[in-house]
């Protein structure tokens, strides 16, 4: 290896389950090799060590849900040459964005006796709603292989090779029988971005949209197919509303079935 200084990587957490940053520690076979090429400068889940910015690459997990975090993300952006948001929370607001469809005051009165001490915004929003994001890596959780690809690409100054086609393409590649056609299962594969290697269909269940909308998804057509099969409107709304509920295409489609 040359004497060139190693690029500095930082990992930041906002509102999330920690699963996407855990993916980095779950790279058991690659982790010790990766640190030969990268200086992990800020990754509190893994280390007490803290190296000041600027950072060559920042991985940002989680959505923005508090006034404090809405400020903090700007500091992260200022200290990062390249900022990649990772996971459904960071790219679409995550499961906690289900609050965006409710009146937060109703939410509180249902669940909490004493609304005090705590600060929260009434919407959970993706990182790109607040600062410029160089790349959005989808998934709930993200794929380890795609994470390594993105880190590798940015550190080598190239575009990451992350397909934006649908889960259906992966099913065909694997040779999995189409559940939507053969068994009429609730499968979001046709409108969902690939990345999981069509995992759910290979486990005999329909895709439920972990990687968010694919490029140019025809959600209306899929909804019409389900509606013809007798799926009630209330279920149509729910199908689009889980981990990527606030992603544009899923949000609009779910709203079009709301009564």
């Amino acid at each position, binding site marked *: 290896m040359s004497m060139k200084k190693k690029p500095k990587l930082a990992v930041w*957490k906002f*509102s*999330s*389950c*920690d*699963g*996407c940053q*855990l*993916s980095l*520690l*779950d790279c*058991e*076979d690659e*982790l*010790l090799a990766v640190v030969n090429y990268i200086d*992990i400068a800020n990754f*509190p*889940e*893994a*280390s*007490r*060590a803290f190296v000041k910015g600027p950072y060559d690459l920042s991985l940002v997990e989680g959505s923005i*849900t*508090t*006034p404090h*975090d809405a400020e903090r993300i700007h500091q992260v952006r200022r200290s990062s040459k390249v900022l990649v948001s990772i996971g459904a929370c960071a790219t679409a607001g995550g*499961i*906690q964005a*289900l*609050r965006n469809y*409710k009146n*937060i*005051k109703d*939410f509180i009165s*249902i*669940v909490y*006796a*004493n*609304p*005090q*001490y*705590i*600060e*929260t*915004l*009434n*919407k959970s*929003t993706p990182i790109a*709603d607040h600062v410029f994001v160089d790349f959005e890596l989808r998934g*709930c959780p993200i794929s380890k292989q795609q994470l390594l690809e993105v880190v590798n690409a940015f550190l080598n100054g190239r575009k990451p090779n992350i397909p934006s086609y649908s889960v259906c393409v992966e099913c065909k590649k694997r040779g999995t029988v189409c559940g939507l056609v053969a068994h009429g299962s609730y499968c979001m594969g046709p409108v969902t971005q690939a990345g*999981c290697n069509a*995992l*759910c269909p290979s*486990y*005999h*269940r329909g895709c*439920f949209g972990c990687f968010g909308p694919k490029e140019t998804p025809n959600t209306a057509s899929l909804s019409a197919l389900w509606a013809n099969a007798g799926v009630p409107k209330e279920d149509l709304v*729910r199908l689009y509303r*889980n*981990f990527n509920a606030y992603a544009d295409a899923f949000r609009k489609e779910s709203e079009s079935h709301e009564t």
Partner: protein
Amino acid sequence: MKTGTVKVDYLARVEGEGALLVKIRNKTVTDVKFRIFEPPRFFEAFLRGRSYTEVPDIVARICGICPVAYQMSSAHAIENAFGVKVAGPLRDLRRLLYCGEWIESHVLHVFMLHAPDFMGYEDAIQMAKDHGDLVKKALDLKKLGNDIVNLIGGREIHPINVRVGGFYRLPTKQELAKLAERLKWGVEFAIKMVKFTGTLPFPDFERDYEYVALRHEQEYPFNEGRLVSSKGLNIDIPEYEAHFAEEHVEHSNALQSICKDTGAYFVGPMARYNLNFDKLTRTAQESAKSAGLGKTCTNPFKSIIARSVETLYACEEALRIIEQYQDPESPAVGITPRAGTGFGCTEAPRGILYHHYRVDDKGRILEARIVPPTSQNQKTIEQDLRQFVPPRLKLNQEQLTLQCEQAIRNYDPCISCATHFLKLEIHEDER
């Protein structure tokens, strides 16, 4: 330090966002706050109106480190509401899945989050420079845990194969056989892991805790059992809320649990070990003994040994399940939704995880209540620090801070879990 403050603004090597504040005046600890500032995510609120079929997938997202625990507690609670019992090989597969999660989560904590404290490193990557072989083998064992979850669950983070009633797809015997070979190595290495943790330097610190864990007549607890404590509590799961309460304190975004009669209590590997030693395998018992861990232990720093003993147990148990596995008739038992209330409590890697649901006749969630392990340990963590700090005031600020952090890491706190529900102040969206 006579007067001063020990302050950590962002605790490292824990899951989620927490901080520590200890105030000292005239050699007396005047205040201890284990502050949780992880933002609220409101799972119990948005679960309302969702179908029971979606619950295991949704609650998994509370925690990326122990999603299986959330899936298990929720599936058991909903099955309880519907009057369904999952038994035989399907029950064994659930246990196997849980073994996988215990292995990956425990090894992560023992080697990557906690051991660096005992050995004087900032993290496991630095530790690997001097102890490369150990860290590499630890990563291999962690991977083995993850691969069990991968096979049975579909993927290691937020598995997709768990459903109310069982699974979507069953593993084949060939797939399981591959894991069995690696588990034999896993048992060998876990024995070394227990031995290694037994050689670490432990601070002199004991407290009279109330340990709380599940206890099952035949087995070391994962999914079922009665809730028992070292101070004589012995209840059925639906009685949980009659005996435990949650308090809200200003400095924490997670509610703090207490036992109504006795106050703070302690859940997790130490609690399970103390209350279920007799249910461990002989190998696990003997390993514990040779690592200097008695049948009971009240030094929380030794939780790293208990966690390793449980890792060994989980490897042996996974191997046993695979060797005795018979294909179930179907991947899941039939479910007919009915209106009712159900309770579930299982042993997450960090301790008991309680779920309570009320559902309507179509199986839609009307009400949900979830109590994760870390909110149950919060008060005990603060009490530990109150007792731990005074005899160590002669240490310099840096050493004292590090030791306080280490004392918190004894509990492997998962702050992301602890903070999925709380009180809040409304800020109108300014954007």
